[in-house]
């Protein structure tokens, strides 16, 4: 095929590649820079000061790092970050433990049944997310349907003993209700990538494993799980990242024990009206989530490099 004269072909290609970059620039990088800028600005009652000013022929930089120093010195913020990471991690783990068998079953069941199961997984998305979280409030409150069931089997005593609820019968606004709500909400985000990964797997590999002496259980751990690693990573990211910054679910289902970073952000913005502080909290949160992911993907890339 003959390329069009000059660099016209390059322009066409750049345009195609440029679209996602432009998208990221406009909707991710620019807002992030705005947030970062505010985080180092002064709050002047209703407006935010500029960080670079021009006055009497002199450029003045007014960059304030006090907010970040406060983040480091006030252990309230530190504790909130840790608790956000903790609840996000627990939720991710639960989603993985529940979602993997579910996705596995879905991928291995008859082809004719698979679309129906997929539908069931996605069905909750058709109802408002807020409505579903509110529904949990009704289910977990005293004499709620689920609350009664949990108390009937004595599961609440177990939860109380584990310190997840303050005492038997008190299910709402506890770490338990928070994790339950987040696991429920984010489970489909774990199941879908796992399902698409597991459904693609070449089942002859399992026959080969069996032929070479592996029982079904061994074959699962030595073949299926390692091969579904990409799905596990995708699902974990999709659940963990939004969970860290989750605001609505902790607000509705969480309690005084379960302060998460989203709530702190909201308080700084709307209760304290301290936008620079709120922005510092947000920037710190982004770094907190992005840095481990960047390190991980770099490690991944190196591992792939070494293999080739």
């Amino acid at each position, binding site marked *: 095929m003959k390329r069009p004269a000059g660099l016209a072909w390059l322009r066409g290609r750049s345009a195609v590649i440029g679209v996602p970059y432009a998208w990221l620039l406009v909707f991710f990088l620019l807002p992030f820079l705005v947030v970062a800028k505010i985080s180092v600005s002064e709050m002047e009652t209703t407006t935010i000061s500029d960080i670079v000013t021009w006055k009497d022929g002199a450029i003045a930089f007014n960059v304030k790092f006090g907010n970040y120093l406060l983040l480091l010195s006030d252990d309230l913020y530190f504790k909130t970050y840790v608790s956000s990471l903790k609840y996000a991690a627990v939720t991710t783990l639960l989603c993985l433990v529940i979602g993997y068998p579910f996705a596995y079953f879905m991928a291995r069941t008859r082809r004719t049944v698979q679309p129906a199961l997929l539908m069931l997984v996605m069905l909750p998305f058709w109802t408002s997310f807020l409505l579903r979280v509110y529904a949990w409030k009704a289910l977990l409150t005293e004499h709620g349907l689920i609350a009664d069931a949990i108390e009937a089997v004595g599961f609440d005593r177990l939860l109380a003993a584990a310190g997840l609820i303050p005492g038997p019968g008190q299910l709402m606004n506890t770490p338990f209700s928070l994790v339950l709500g987040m696991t429920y909400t984010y489970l489909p985000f774990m199941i879908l990538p796992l399902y698409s990964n597991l459904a693609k797997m070449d089942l002859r590999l399992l026959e080969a*494993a069996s032929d*070479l002496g*592996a029982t079904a259980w061994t074959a699962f751990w030595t073949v299926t799980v390692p091969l579904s690693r990409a799905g596990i990573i995708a699902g974990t990211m999709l659940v963990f990242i939004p969970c860290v910054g989750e605001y609505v679910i902790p607000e509705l289902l969480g309690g005084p024990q379960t302060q998460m970073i989203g709530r702190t952000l909201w308080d700084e913005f709307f209760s304290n009206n301290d936008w620079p502080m709120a922005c510092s909290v947000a920037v710190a949160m982004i770094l907190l989530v992005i840095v481990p992911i960047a390190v991980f993907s770099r490690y991944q890339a190196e591992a792939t490099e070494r293999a080739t």
Partner: protein
Amino acid sequence: MSAEAFLQIRHLVKEFEGHPAVDNVSIDIAKGEVFALLGSSGCGKTTLLRMLAGFETPTSGSVVLDGRNLAGLPPYERPMNMMFQSYALFPHLTVADNIAFGLRRDGMPAAEIGVRVEAMLKLVQLGGYAKRKPHQLSGGQQQRVALARSLAKKPQLLLLDEPLGALDRKLREETQIELANIVHDVGVTCVMVTHDQEEAMTMASRIAVMSAGRFLQVGAPAEIYETPSSRFVADFIGNVNLMEGSVVEDEAGHVVVDCGDCKHWIGHGITGTLGMKVTVALRPEKIRIGREPPADGSGAAPPAPFNRVRGKVKDLAYFGSFTVYHLLLAGGRVLKVSQSNSERGGGTALTWNDEAWASWAPLSPVVLTQ
């Protein structure tokens, strides 16, 4: 059938929804034998192999390996290993780990595994490739890893599912002989499945031609080729001219079959009766072709009008080492004749629309009654 055969398959049946895929197959396979199941797709050969491996449960019948009935044994407990058609190499494991997979399942000590893997890599001539991943290897190398993996556990029985099916033609020819040598050197008893007759003939000591779940003929490659027992086998293996006719002379030493334009004088007796309808099979390479009629009594050709026919070259296909002529006979029949091009630019080369004589020896045709 002897009772002490190494692998005994008895009345094996596999039905899928009432439809027999394998229909009452019995065979004895001796230790060290390379046995090929040959047939077109859907003939049941793969189902039979999968029953041996334990992936399919027979509807009825039994498989006994070295005196041990395999009924009910799951694949992972069977003392046999399979080389899969698509190789089924584990993509997340290196070549060495692929080969070691089965040994690890047996709990072999790590040091021993290392030695065995090394030996296997050497056997298939992949010495420097231990650390590679399967996707970094060529098709031929992957095939050899698959072979090494299936031999690593020193199985009593090696199962090969279309071992060369995924390779291109040139590579297949080279690999065929290499594979045959390795299997022979290791001395493992082997059952292979193939739809490729060349593959079966070069590798196997015995071939079973399968159709519709049954064995049509079992024998050494030459036996199957030279003396097929039925029209199907004659037609399936190699090229053949099949001619319908009836027995017009039936003596102890010879028979004559009249097929209209071709009258065959066949130099051996048959079990049949005068007037019986039969099919005569004649391989293209067993027919001589030339411009002149064959001299009476020359070579082994019987006197006129037997085993000779005149026709016009309707088509010819030049294959390099040999040429295939399609000779149009007066009655409208087309006779396929192949002639090896042993001389370069032979002056007698026939071309389109040339008149030519075809002739064949008394022992060349095979009389088929089914």
